């Protein structure tokens, strides 16, 4: 398969960037999107040019490193998968594909398609945990958790922190990311002791980082590679009411 790529190139955080057009040829339909970029980069390096910088690591959709806006869709046209899991067979031969970095004020561009998502870590550090020291835990079966609660908590816990929710949200909101953690810990008895403080602190940090507010477009749910439901945002909102009103 052959493709025309328009890729966002930007030398550093402060530089102006622009879309640059490249062509790649003879790509196997079974190649992943990142492997297609590898091939492009090998060609560029052979020509002595700098390769396109993009974040990636596990290449099996779990580490959350990769994340590209591909033809106007976070992680590309295929639902429920990360960029690294996207195969070129999802495109037509001779397609033109525009590739851009995640765009949000709290995700400044480092280089080309690499953005800085450490804002997520700061949100997590603001209470996205259960305060239990190593060694303090009671026997694992001392805390029974109904199966449906554990399953729902797991539905939220599968978040890979890739930032697709922010990237795709028209408001650059991180609500689905925050909700996934708040909801997971609200569903489990272990998280209850700190639930009020947690939701307040994490949301305050989210606002301080400069993420937008949720306007319930549900675009995040549609583009989330792990298909985390906006139901968890509803639960976060309930947690917020519980914390601020009761």
């Amino acid at each position, binding site marked *: 398969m052959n493709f025309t790529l*328009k890729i*966002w190139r930007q030398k550093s955080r402060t530089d102006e960037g622009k*879309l640059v057009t490249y062509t790649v040829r003879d790509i196997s339909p079974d190649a992943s999107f990142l492997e297609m970029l590898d091939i492009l980069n090998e060609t560029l390096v052979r020509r002595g040019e700098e390769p396109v910088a993009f974040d990636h690591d596990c290449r099996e959709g779990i580490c959350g490193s990769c994340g590209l*806006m591909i*033809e*106007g*869709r976070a992680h590309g*046209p295929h639902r429920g998968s990360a960029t690294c899991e996207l195969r070129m067979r999802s495109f037509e031969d001779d397609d033109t594909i*525009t590739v*851009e970095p995640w*765009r*949000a*004020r*709290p995700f400044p561009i480092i280089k080309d398609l690499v953005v800085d998502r450490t804002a997520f870590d700061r949100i997590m550090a603001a209470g996205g945990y259960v305060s239990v020291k190593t060694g303090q835990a009671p026997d694992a079966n001392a805390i029974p958790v109904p199966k449906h609660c554990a399953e729902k908590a797991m539905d939220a816990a599968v978040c890979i922190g890739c930032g697709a929710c922010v990237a*795709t949200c*028209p*408001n*650059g*909101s991180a*609500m689905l990311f925050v909700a996934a953690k708040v909801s997971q810990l609200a569903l489990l008895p272990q998280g209850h002791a700190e639930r009020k403080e947690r939701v*307040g602190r994490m*949301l*305050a940090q*989210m*606002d301080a980082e*400069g*993420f*937008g*507010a*949720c*306007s*319930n*477009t*549900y*675009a995040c749910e*549609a*583009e989330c590679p792990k298909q985390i*439901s*906006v*139901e968890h*945002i*509803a*639960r*976060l*909102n*309930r*947690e*917020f*009411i519980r914390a*601020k*009103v009761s």
Partner: protein
Amino acid sequence: MSKTTSFLMSSVGRKMIMALSGLFLCSFLVVHLYINLFLFKSDYGVEFDAYSHFMATYPLIRPIEIVLFLGFLLHAIVGIWLWLMNRRARPVKYEVLKASENSALSSRIMWVTGIVVAAFLVVHINSFFITSRFLTPERSMFVIVREVFRNPWYDAFYVVALGFLAYHLKHGFQSAFQTFGLRGTRYQRLIDLVAMIFWLLIPIGFAAMPLYFLWAY
């Protein structure tokens, strides 16, 4: 920080104010439509005028009107505030963005539908509320309505604006319940049903009036 300040300072708190004020305005729509339905009664507006008179003169109504007006104002101001905050969150736009693949148009253009509804309100209040309350309080409200709705251009604007209101409510009503954390619970079906009444039946009810006076009356 007190609970109230931290509530207001939070983006989620502000969303809740949007939801709360929005639902409050929706409740007004119900009352408004209920009274207006008397326009269709074949009594040459006798009962409708009686209600109008009651609304204009009963002392308790005035404070309610003020609260209603403040509700509009609050909804608009917090809406603009959030809109600005949301715009700031993405200073550089995407070159290519296929938003239609992942979300409903109604959810993405609330600010457009909101502005149109606000403009409509200005015209609407000028045509009916200002006229009847301040300019010619002695005239029959029924007659005023009939006169205004005989103008096809006005009616066209009115119906289109109601279309925008419907679109605004299509997203806004269920969105408010999501904000309160009630969607995705066992109330989901009930909410979707009530939402349908609000975004579909109520605007149709209102839109029926100008058309009735234009063609049927």
